């Protein structure tokens, strides 16, 4: 734990703007040397995410056409939300002219999970205010997941932004392709959406390998199991809420235990003296 805290402090110092400005680029040897290489690394990061995003985009485009909605709704929705699953829900609701309040509530519940990403999304690597705003707007599950699995030293603004822009291109492009396919073909190859599940599985393995947080995995497992039993319709939302509550409880326990140990030591020293 002490080591963790020390690492964090070192990271904060390194990321601090003034410090970074005075560090010559050759000192940070672990980073790819040029902006171009970092951008290329970001585009490479996006490929695995694209395997899941593209089929989902095509599904969205198909759905828009099949629901009898105007074709431009597919790219417009992709750009306004850039959030994946919720857009498929919104298409269905818009087609039946659901009241706007109900749509707002659905978006709030389904996308609420993004609130938790702020804790560990590496927004601090992005400096420019507009780029920062874009990085926040484009903080989709896949962008969060791919970056959570990356070591801190390999993160950079060009890499993060290139990854996010590429993902948005797949998403909007997939939607347009789906619209084009809409009437011509019976439907896309069945089962491609499994790519998302495979992606998250692999990234969870990587995150576990770089940070052996077994208790977090167990707490997450308990949260998702409870969520699937209690609220299968909004399992992701409930699981994240329960998971955060369990982590807070774990934090309180650890703090109390540390305080108890400190008190015990003090008492022991006092008895010894």
């Amino acid at each position, binding site marked *: 734990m002490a080591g*963790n805290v020390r690492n*964090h402090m070192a990271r904060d110092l390194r990321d601090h703007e003034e410090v970074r400005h005075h560090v010559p680029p050759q000192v940070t040897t672990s980073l790819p040397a040029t902006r171009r290489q970092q951008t290329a690394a970001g585009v490479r990061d996006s*490929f*695995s995410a694209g395997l*899941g995003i593209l089929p989902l985009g095509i599904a969205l485009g198909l759905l828009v056409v099949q629901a009898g*909605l*105007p074709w431009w709704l597919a790219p*417009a*929705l992709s750009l306004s939300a850039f*959030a994946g699953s*919720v857009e498929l829900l919104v298409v269905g609701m*818009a087609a039946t*002219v659901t009241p*706007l309040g109900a*749509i707002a509530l659905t*978006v*709030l519940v389904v*996308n609420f999970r*993004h609130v*938790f*990403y*702020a*804790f*560990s999304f590496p927004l601090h690597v992005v400096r420019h205010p507009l780029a920062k705003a874009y990085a*926040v*707007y484009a*903080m989709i599950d896949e962008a*969060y*997941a791919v970056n*959570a*699995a990356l070591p801190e030293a390999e993160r950079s603004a060009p890499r993060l932004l290139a990854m996010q822009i590429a993902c948005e291109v797949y998403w909007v492009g997939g939607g347009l392709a789906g619209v084009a396919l809409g009437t011509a073909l019976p439907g896309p*190859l*069945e*089962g*491609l959406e*499994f790519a998302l*599940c*495979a992606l*998250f*599985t*692999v*990234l*969870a393995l*990587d995150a576990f*390998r770089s*940070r052996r*947080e077994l*208790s*977090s*995995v167990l707490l997450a497992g308990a*949260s*998702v199991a409870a969520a*699937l039993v209690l609220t299968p319709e909004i*399992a992701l939302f409930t*699981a*994240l809420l329960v*998971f*955060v509550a369990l982590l807070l409880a*774990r*934090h309180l326990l650890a703090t109390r235990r540390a305080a108890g140990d400190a008190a015990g030591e003090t008492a022991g020293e006092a008895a010894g003296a």
Partner: protein
Amino acid sequence: MPSTPYLLAVLGIVFGITFALRAVPFAALRTLRTSATVRRLSTWMPVGILAILAVTTLHGTIAAEPRATLHALLAVAATVGAHLAFSRRTILSVSIGTTVYVVLVNAF
């Protein structure tokens, strides 16, 4: 057919709520950056969130196609196996797992 103003209102709502959910926590966290609670949560959360996403997407796949439950579980095993066998090549592991699932679902 819904009217264009209605659809534009939907787009506005979707954008506003989604962006706010993503942006507000960053603004709130800026003041909490030194908090020990936030530091601990930021180390503990990623692996758990990824595991939850993996399980809920698997559940979504199975819920959409209940007869393919076994196929989905086999495909997860293939993904994990490929990832452990070919040392962390994400695209390769995801492609192998997805191919296994697509083939199984379309063949059986």
